[in-house]
């Protein structure tokens, strides 16, 4: 029993220490960071947070951009993947098995390699510096996993229930809205959260599509701060940015832990 809780403590420390250290750094004065083990009169400060909120543009703009982008991407992914998953789950031919296999392969593909062509598309159709446009590749990148997860969930629903509702004269849209979606709700919620997290964290495509500093997403903005000065890097400022960028996801994970886990594990079992 004691060994178990010791191991558990180690695991929790391993996950949390880097985060706690960021929090500590963000609240420390530069003097306290340089000489942490000596006694300094002024150790704690909120100056870093004040500065990061007064940057041009202020930091919350990035949080706002990432949130908007995440919501649009999640919405688009759902309205495209739900019909496709339904169709895939309801037809049992060799082609659907093939499609499933292709989707699995595509979901594995290291998508960072796609950036050059996607950039070309953005240039050709003038899609740069537009969060709505950026949600198109994000949606496409989220689709394979979303379809795999949702079609597995559709398969769980008995066809009898659906056939009964066909006899009642419900059309496809009514069936989806009144019968299928309410049952599917848990799977949809898990998928949404996974898609939102992906979109919130995506880096290479946002890096190449967005250059206007008012439209940067959080990860790109962070990297920009990192690249801005090579020698005197304002780590206190960084840490404040890290903490502020982490809090929304921290809340999301704490609230939806169960949904995230079931999404990931359903994907593992049925994907």
């Amino acid at each position, binding site marked *: 029993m004691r060994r178990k809780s010791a191991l558990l403590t180690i695991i929790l420390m391993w996950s949390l220490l880097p985060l706690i250290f960021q929090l500590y750094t963000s609240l420390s004065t530069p003097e306290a960071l340089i000489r942490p083990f000596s006694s300094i009169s002024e150790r704690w400060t909120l100056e870093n947070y004040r500065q990061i909120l007064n940057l041009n543009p202020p930091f919350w703009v990035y949080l706002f951009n990432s949130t908007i982008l995440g919501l649009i991407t999640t919405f688009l992914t759902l309205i495209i993947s739900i019909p496709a998953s339904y169709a895939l789950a309801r037809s049992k031919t060799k082609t659907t098995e093939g499609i499933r296999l292709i989707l699995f392969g595509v979901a594995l593909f290291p998508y960072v390699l796609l950036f050059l062509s996607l950039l070309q598309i953005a240039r050709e159709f003038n899609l740069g510096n537009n969060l709505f446009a950026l949600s198109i590749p994000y949606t496409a990148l989220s689709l394979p996993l979303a379809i795999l997860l949702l079609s597995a969930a559709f398969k769980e629903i008995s066809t009898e229930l659906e056939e009964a509702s066909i006899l009642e004269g419900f059309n496809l849209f009514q069936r989806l809205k009144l019968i299928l979606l309410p049952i599917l709700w848990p799977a949809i919620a898990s998928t949404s959260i996974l898609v939102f997290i992906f979109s919130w964290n995506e880096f290479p495509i946002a890096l190449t599509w967005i250059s206007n500093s008012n439209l940067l997403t959080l990860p790109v903005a962070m990297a920009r701060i990192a690249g801005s000065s090579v020698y005197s890097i304002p780590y206190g400022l*960084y840490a404040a940015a890290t903490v502020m960028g982490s809090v929304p996801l921290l809340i999301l994970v704490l609230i939806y832990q169960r949904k995230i886990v079931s999404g990931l594990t359903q994907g*593992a079992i049925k994907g």
Partner: protein
Amino acid sequence: MTLILILPAALLISLVFLFPLVHYLWLSSKAFSVMTGLVAINNNGANWIRLLNDQRFWQDIYQTTRFAITSVSLELLLAIIIAIILDQRIKGRGLIRAITLLPWALPTAVMALGWRWIFNSPYGPIEQITSLLGLEPINILSTPEITWMATVIADVWKTTPFIALIILAGLQSIPYDLYEALRLEGGNQYSAFIKITIPLISPYIFLSLVFRLAQAFGVFDLIQVMTGGGPASSTESIAMYAYINAMRFLDFGYSATIMIGSFLLLSTSCFLAYLIINQTKSLISNQKP
């Protein structure tokens, strides 16, 4: 009807995944850079000859492979241990799972910056502790021999939760009766682990291995933000090299060649790994009575 429902998804997926592959294949046969005035000119496979002789490309292949294999094996090992512990009945399991999941959910670029500070010399906590102990400074992020290990640590921290959760799902799918039956036959904990746990979670291990290896091979954000590929290009990954060629040298033809080349290498090695794993799998299942 089926077709109409699938069509939007199929179109988007082919636009984003299929088009680039065709586009890269076309680009890789052209000289297409700022030197040619951004006009595509046939160059009879000169890109490919250049790739084969490019020291930096092979160095990056080596570095990316070293990074991917080291971090994924460490992650797998830790993930199995973590999953076994999380599988036990413990108080506050929800909160504990949420905390272990946290590193995975945070943006890689954001936490890469955090790790850069942790490994910073001389003010980061690690160097502060070594100096407190009276040791020589390690200069983790400016010593080419060890910087890549720092990137491995950051990657292990970030992605172990993902594998652990998938393996946890595997553990929880094992019916308890199996262990009970083995215990009645006089098996101990160790033999239960070898005979029941490992074979039954191996599909989950396989899945997370394939997924993580592919991801680790495409590593970009973590290294871009943490080290920028340095010191002396020692941590530069393939994706970064392709990125630099396109965005800094504006040599799109060669950048596409790098991507096709590394994709070919990746899929060949995935196929080989698949064969090897299948072989070992059948060996293990043959041993079962």
